């Protein structure tokens, strides 16, 4: 759904800037929106998600916290119950283990346990992903860990346009939304950024709907499903494959929970081939859910559906170990060829 625009009018933003802009505009529009987290004040967020907000809105609404994730995420739930709309940052998703109770047993279940009488309009933004040598406690994705637990919506943009629109949808939502952003797409100078994530972002406020995947490239021969970073890998692979006469359809999930099984079903009904590309751990992950959902829809496969993922090992530190474990365009190309060879193509 990336808007196209002429070079002259383009406002090409990074995801970091798009997130900050969305939060800032929401804070302007609604005094109930406040921001909490570690280093989100003067520093503007380790991943640039709250740039300029302290200066604009002051320390009352942009609150640096102690390193006390259980308390401040719990506090956010209390704020939300009292009618505020907190945007909270969990610096790395890897830290969920110290505060998951406040997320999955508290925030996620407020609405249900109260029979809908207490709502929890809370955005939990958190960084995911590796590839830059930060080792096994700072490089995880854990998409499925969050998506498995009811009561949470989970989104992840692959570009700045979606980042702004999904953030605005998340802030407007009456429910807890886990907003994951991928470090390889974030646009922080010090991290390196996939250029395709930096796109035109309209100045005005707009929403990208939660729960809807996007078909970012049409194709008839094989369906490549990705999310966040892996969307870009899939697009890159699709270009290579097109030169060989294989037309890949690329789906950007955008929302992980609730998953848009329908969008995948429509595509595989046509292509009858599927590869899910996911940089989270392999087993019990997004890739399994996408494949299971597609199977349930009753596809007459031309080739067995497959997944390209990080394997079931902790994420190693050395680039010599980590890089070969990650999904890549080359792996997608190779597996796509295998699936299409001998098929209807």
């Amino acid at each position, binding site marked *: 759904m990336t808007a196209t625009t002429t070079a002259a009018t383009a406002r090409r933003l990074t995801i970091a800037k798009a997130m900050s802009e969305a939060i800032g505009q929401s804070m302007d529009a609604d005094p109930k929106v406040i921001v909490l987290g570690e280093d989100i004040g003067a520093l503007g967020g380790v991943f640039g998600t709250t740039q300029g907000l302290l200066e604009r809105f002051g320390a009352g*609404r942009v*609150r640096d916290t102690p390193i006390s994730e259980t308390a*401040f995420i719990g*506090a956010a739930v209390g704020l939300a119950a009292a009618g505020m709309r907190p945007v909270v940052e969990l610096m790395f998703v890897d830290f969920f283990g110290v505060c998951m109770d406040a997320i999955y047993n508290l925030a996620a279940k407020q609405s*249900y346990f109260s*029979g809908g009488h207490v709502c929890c309009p809370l955005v939990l933004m958190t960084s995911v992903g590796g590839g830059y040598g930060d080792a096994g406690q700072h490089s995880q994705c854990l998409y499925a860990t969050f998506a498995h637990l009811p009561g949470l*919506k989970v989104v992840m943009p692959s570009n700045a346009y979606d980042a702004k629109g999904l953030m605005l949808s998340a802030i407007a939502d*009456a*429910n807890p939304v886990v907003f994951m952003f991928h470090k390889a797409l974030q646009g922080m100078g010090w991290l390196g950024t996939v250029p395709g994530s930096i796109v035109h972002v309209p100045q005005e406020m707009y929403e990208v709907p939660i729960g809807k995947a996007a078909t970012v490239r049409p194709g008839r021969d094989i369906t490549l499903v990705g999310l966040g970073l892996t969307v870009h890998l899939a697009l890159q692979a699709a270009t290579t494959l097109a030169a060989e006469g294989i037309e890949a359809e690329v789906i950007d999930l955008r929302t992980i929970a609730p998953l848009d099984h329908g969008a995948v079903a429509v595509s595989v009904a046509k292509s009858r081939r599927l590869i899910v590309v996911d940089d989270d751990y392999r087993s019990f992950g997004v890739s399994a859910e996408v494949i299971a959902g597609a199977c349930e829809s009753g596809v007459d496969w031309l080739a067995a559906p497959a997944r390209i993922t990080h394997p079931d090992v902790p994420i190693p530190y050395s680039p010599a170990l980590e890089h070969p474990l990650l999904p890549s365009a080359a792996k997608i190309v190779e597996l796509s060829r295998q699936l299409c060879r001998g098929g209807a193509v």
Partner: protein
Amino acid sequence: MPAECDVRIRMYAQMARSRYFEEAIKVAYLEGKQPLFNMAKGPIPGEMHLSSGQEPCAVGVCAHLRPDDTVTATHRAHHIAIAKGVALNAMAAEIFGKRDGLSGGRGGHMHLFDAGVNFCCSGIVAQGMGPAVGAALAAKLGGSDAVAVSFIGEGAANQGAFHESLNLAAVWKVPVVFVIEDNAWGISVAKRASTAIERNSDRAASYGMPGSFVADNDIDAIYAAAGEAIQRARAGGGPTLIEIETWRLEGHFMGDAEGYRPSGEVAALQTRDPLIVYRQRLAAAGVSTAELESIEGRELRAVTDALQFARKSDYPAAESAFDTVFS
């Protein structure tokens, strides 16, 4: 002093209501669970944590609260819910898993929510502490003088959330009062076997906040200590930690054989049953037996009515299990 007397009589009424409620629930809970006790059976399933004996903590504190003040409570929360003014019929119906329950039967005994009086409770030890800090911050940011009170047990004071929440409350200087009901037991583990110091109120010093200890399950002393803390909070003076010595007259949950409990402990506590003690104190202060009995009659009827309401209510339609996952 009629005003003070009023308060004491109101507190006695609430304690009585709470006790009658627990006794009625106890009877109902055992229906269908005899002769073979099976938690799943009968009109009230699941675990049941009764609060008999702990009424003074809830009533003495909540006597200072308004509907716009927030209370977050624990797995053992009936007395606190009643003291905070949660709708009694809907609460009973919730515990019976009925459609007219507070949450249409989705939450149950450990998840009582009443948005009308800003009450909630939870099954995870110390989980309510962060939310209380948040509710207090919301009040502060909104310019209201509302406060939040977080109730926990003494066992919960060894959970990480305790430390984080007290520190955060102190750093933010928000109007919250943390109340520890020290009933000396966390299930089967005695306080002295799990807590490195005698009084959790001393831990207030770690956060630069006032801490106070109330001995002997004494509701008048609790009322006084809580009043001071809540008034300080309303006036912008920040958080307070209060530990209250109280007693668990029942097992941890119903069905608990309490083999771990020293013999005679409960019997000794029963002789100091706070309901009886307070009744005597009020009588000594001049409240007539007739008045006490009229209060008791009224509260018993309210409880009886609530349980009848609960029993008469229908079960929710199965499809409603899919509602309100998201608001």
